[in-house]
């Protein structure tokens, strides 16, 4: 980047137009050097919050001592709350250096500054020294609000060392501090302190705070005392939330032992469910407690009095033995939602086969969900034929795909009864059933399939012709020239299917006599669906010219260029992937994402350079695409560069969905670099399932490093590491024994 360019950007960063300044901030973020840094620092005081956010994002990637010092100035700016907030946001991103500034600000004369600093602490990966510093500041703090903020910061460290000072604050007798200490103890998340909180339930002023903390601690120990209080009539929204959390964390045996402690539970909870005017959160928790305690009639009560705030999710809390009863109950109502809740709960799980009876539900939505949920081969063939014959657009495709597979996993050509049923429907009258049968027959081969597809190609129904073209392309018997004929079909969806078909044939490496990428060009200005398919077809058919054509596609309409970029991965062309790098910073996020995904097939050096940059993009969707692409790439030379980038991103990623993708990438990489950042993730109050999976993968491959992490981790991470290590040990034992 030339100095002239940087100066131009700095001038634009001072423009009167906010959009100009916002754009300049984005570009300055990618420019190295002090001049660009100074311009970004000036933007921390910008009047427009979006510009400040961009400046923070840009500076977050280069937290130099100069940036740290500018943050300290911002933090102390009593006149400009926006400036102060930008400084705080940047300090949070600044890791240990940012934390040092925040800890220093705890001695600022202004209570507002001290409170702001406390609210931003502890930052990522707080160690013992951070706890000690915050605790010391809390001890000397005279302002009650600042002290309360410090107690909350102690709770957010999640460390065991923070618990003693919080318990001490609880015993000081100052109600304001006690309430905040309870909140912080809930945040710290160590269920072992539940017994210290339970006695506070008798203090009317602290009861709500104590129950809220117990709801977050999720300790099974709280189950018994809370049930006794409920039995004594102390039932409200706070108690039921805490009771639900305690029961959810208890084992089945414990639950069975607890049930007799509240003999009136059924009547009390049912009364709450029956009253639609009652608080929605209270009714929801009541439904869950009813299910957890396995009280008689729980299933029917939930189905009859729902939906609740979370729909019919309480059905998931029923014990396994009640599954059949729940099935009967959801079959008694025409509303599909309760049935769908059961199906969603067990999709992909070992109990999915037990949901087959739901196929008789009157709702087509439920039937389709059953067909997509239960394992292959479980639904009898005649039932599937019946569903297909209903010609319902909701169920037809699910039924046809279910017909196309059985439990053996044999190809459709070796399943004569299923194949015959699909052929019969594919040769029958037009309708959703015929479309679906043709889609499923794409998996089969043979002259009879060819005849059915050819017959469908001349159907008056464009949906049938579209399905026939797709099936023809998947098979090998119908020549490419016949698919080319379909390019002149009057329906754009059929033309699009033909273009996709040609692309598919090219991806399979087939020679397509007389067909070239030029055949797709005319469709680039067709209807959007056909134009996008044409973009993909041009790239697929381009052969050696692919890199150049990818570059040309990048100046086409969004639908075309995105489809063209997406095609690169399917062709596996590393040279074309190199051409996609130019689109990584494209202003359209979908184009940038498609370019990132193309890097799945890029050469190692290209991937090692481009993917870490994409992981640091300011757009969440681009970062997610980068993480997913890293997870898909095979292990290779680029692994160490990508591993370091994923480790850094795990610590700084603010977006939960992107974090999940990063955790999947971490599972695939699973080297020791991941242990420390993963410990940070595991110390959060709620973590995605992918975090536990990553911990288990790491515990299998790097058990020593994980054991070390377990011994020094904050309370929540300690428990999760312990579970992961135990699971890894179990897996190893089972592997040895086999």
């Amino acid at each position, binding site marked *: 980047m030339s100095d002239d360019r940087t100066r131009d950007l700095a001038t634009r960063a001072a423009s009167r137009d906010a959009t100009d300044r916002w754009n300049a901030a984005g570009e300055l973020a990618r420019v190295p050097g002090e001049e660009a840094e100074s311009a970004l620092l000036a933007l921390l005081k910008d009047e427009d919050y979006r510009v400040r956010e961009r400046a923070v994002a840009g500076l977050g990637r280069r937290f130099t001592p100069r940036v740290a010092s500018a943050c300290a100035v911002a933090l102390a700016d009593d006149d400009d709350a926006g400036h102060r907030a930008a400084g705080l946001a940047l300090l949070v991103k600044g890791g240990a250096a940012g934390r040092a500034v925040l800890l220093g600000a705890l001695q600022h004369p202004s209570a507002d500054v001290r409170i702001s600093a406390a609210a931003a602490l502890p930052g990522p990966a707080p160690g013992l020294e951070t706890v000690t510093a915050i605790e010391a500041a809390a001890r000397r703090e005279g302002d009650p609000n600042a002290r309360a903020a410090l107690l909350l910061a102690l709770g957010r460290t999640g460390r065991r060392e923070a618990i003693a000072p919080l318990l001490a604050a609880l015993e000081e007798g100052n109600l304001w501090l006690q309430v905040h200490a309870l909140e912080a103890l809930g945040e710290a998340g160590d269920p072992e302190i539940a017994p210290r909180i339970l006695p506070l339930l008798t203090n009317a002023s602290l009861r709500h705070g104590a129950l809220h903390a117990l709801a977050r601690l999720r300790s099974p120990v709280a189950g018994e005392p809370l049930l006794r209080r409920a039995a004594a009539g102390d039932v409200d929204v706070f108690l039921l939330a805490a009771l639900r959390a305690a029961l959810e964390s208890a084992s089945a045996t414990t639950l069975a032992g607890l049930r007799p402690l509240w003999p009136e539970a059924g009547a009390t909870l049912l009364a709450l469910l029956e009253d639609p005017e009652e608080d929605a959160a209270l009714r929801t928790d009541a439904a869950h407690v009813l299910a957890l305690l396995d009280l008689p009639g729980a299933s029917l009560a939930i189905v009859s009095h729902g939906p609740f705030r979370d729909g019919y999710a309480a059905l998931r809390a029923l014990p396994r033995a009640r599954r059949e009863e729940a099935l009967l109950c959801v079959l008694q109502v025409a509303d599909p939602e309760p049935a769908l809740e059961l199906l969603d709960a067990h999709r992909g799980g070992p109990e999915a086969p037990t949901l087959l009876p739901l196929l008789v539900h009157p709702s087509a939505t439920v039937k389709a969900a059953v067909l997509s949920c239960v394992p292959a081969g479980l639904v009898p063939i005649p039932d599937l034929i019946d569903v297909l014959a209903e010609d319902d657009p909701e169920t037809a495709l699910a039924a046809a795909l279910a017909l196309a597979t059985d439990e053996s996993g044999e190809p459709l050509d070796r399943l004569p009864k299923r194949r015959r049923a699909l052929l019969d429907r594919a040769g029958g009258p037009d309708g959703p059933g015929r479309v679906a049968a043709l889609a499923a027959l794409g998996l089969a081969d043979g002259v009879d399939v060819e005849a059915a597809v050819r017959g469908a190609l001349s159907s008056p129904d464009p949906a049938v012709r579209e399905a026939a073209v797709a099936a023809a392309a998947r098979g090998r018997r119908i020549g490419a020239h016949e698919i080319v004929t379909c390019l002149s079909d009057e329906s754009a969806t059929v033309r699009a299917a033909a273009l996709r078909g040609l692309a598919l044939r090219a991806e399979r490496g087939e020679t397509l006599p007389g067909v070239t990428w030029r055949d797709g060009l005319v469709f680039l200005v067709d209807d959007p669906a056909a134009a996008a398919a044409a973009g993909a077809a041009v790239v697929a058919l381009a052969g050696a010219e692919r890199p150049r054509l990818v570059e040309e596609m990048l100046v086409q309409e969004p639908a075309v260029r995105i*489809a063209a970029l997406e095609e690169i991965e399917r062709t596996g062309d590393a040279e074309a992937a190199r051409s996609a790098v130019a689109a990584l910073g494209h202003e359209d996020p979908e184009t940038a994402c498609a370019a990132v995904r193309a890097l799945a097939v890029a050469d190692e050096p290209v991937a090692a350079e481009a993917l870490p940059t994409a992981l640091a993009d300011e757009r969440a969707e681009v970062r997610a695409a980068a993480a997913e692409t890293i997870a898909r790439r095979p292990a290779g030379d680029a692994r160490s560069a990508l591993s370091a980038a994923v480790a850094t991103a795990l610590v700084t990623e603010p977006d939960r969905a992107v974090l999940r993708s990063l955790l999947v990438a971490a599972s695939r990489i699973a080297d020791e670099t991941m242990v420390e950042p993963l410990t940070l993730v595991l110390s959060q109050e709620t973590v995605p399932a992918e975090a536990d999976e990553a911990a288990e993968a790491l515990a299998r491959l790097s058990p020593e490093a994980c054991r070390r992490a377990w011994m020094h981790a904050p309370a929540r991470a300690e428990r999760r590491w312990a579970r992961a290590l135990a699971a890894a040990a179990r897996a190893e034992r089972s592997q040895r024994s086999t």
Partner: protein
Amino acid sequence: MTGRPLELAETVFRLYQDLLRRRTGFVVSDSQRVRVESRLAAEARSAGSFYQLYGRLRNEPQDSPLFGRLLDAVVVGETYFFRDPASLKAFSEEIVPERLLAAGQDGTLDIWSAGCATGEEAFSLSIVLHEKAILPARKVRILGTDLSPSHVRRARAAVYGPQSLRATSPERRREHFEAAPGGLFRLKPQLAAPVLFETRSILDEPAFGTRFDVILCRNVLIYLDEEARSRVVEVLSSRLKPGGYILLGASDALSVASSALTLVRLANDVVYRR
């Protein structure tokens, strides 16, 4: 159906959320991910993956069957007959008599249930108009529109389960419904006759077209993003006859604070008037 079902990753689900917001203004909550995964499983398998299915949907017109499947998957139609008695009372006892006077003896009363889900609200209006003997004596047209093709199909069938009739008295059940197979209830044909259903997004409504005496748009605006909300309020206002009324859900009220509509306090409800 082979092995583990296809998964809809959170990041791919966001693409679906963005697509729906851009096309329809409809904001799909994060909690609906599993729902979309389960409802579109067959389509995703046929396309290859949820990402590839998104690639197809991205270029599909909104009225295509495939896009309709997406809309069916995300639009929640939780409603029932006589859901808001106070509002229905305001409609039948205060608004309708006034609008009939404005229409004149031969005039038509035009009513629109925007975001009608499976039709319970539109049919509730028809029932109360019959109970007040306004129907069939006067000319009344009731239009119900919804984004979801599946909801509209169910509304046209006019067959309901006990959940939909949870707030319907036994007398009304006996008088206005007949038994249908499977323990269901079918609305009597004369009550269904004045009601017409169409699959349409409120955002696709032209600013000019049939004008209505009463528009009911309850619990719809809360599912829309800010920009879509303003557009909808603008369109609804432009489609009212002079002096016509808009009835919103309690949580929708703030959305019209800045519009040209006037807040009117009736004896039974608070409504908006042009």
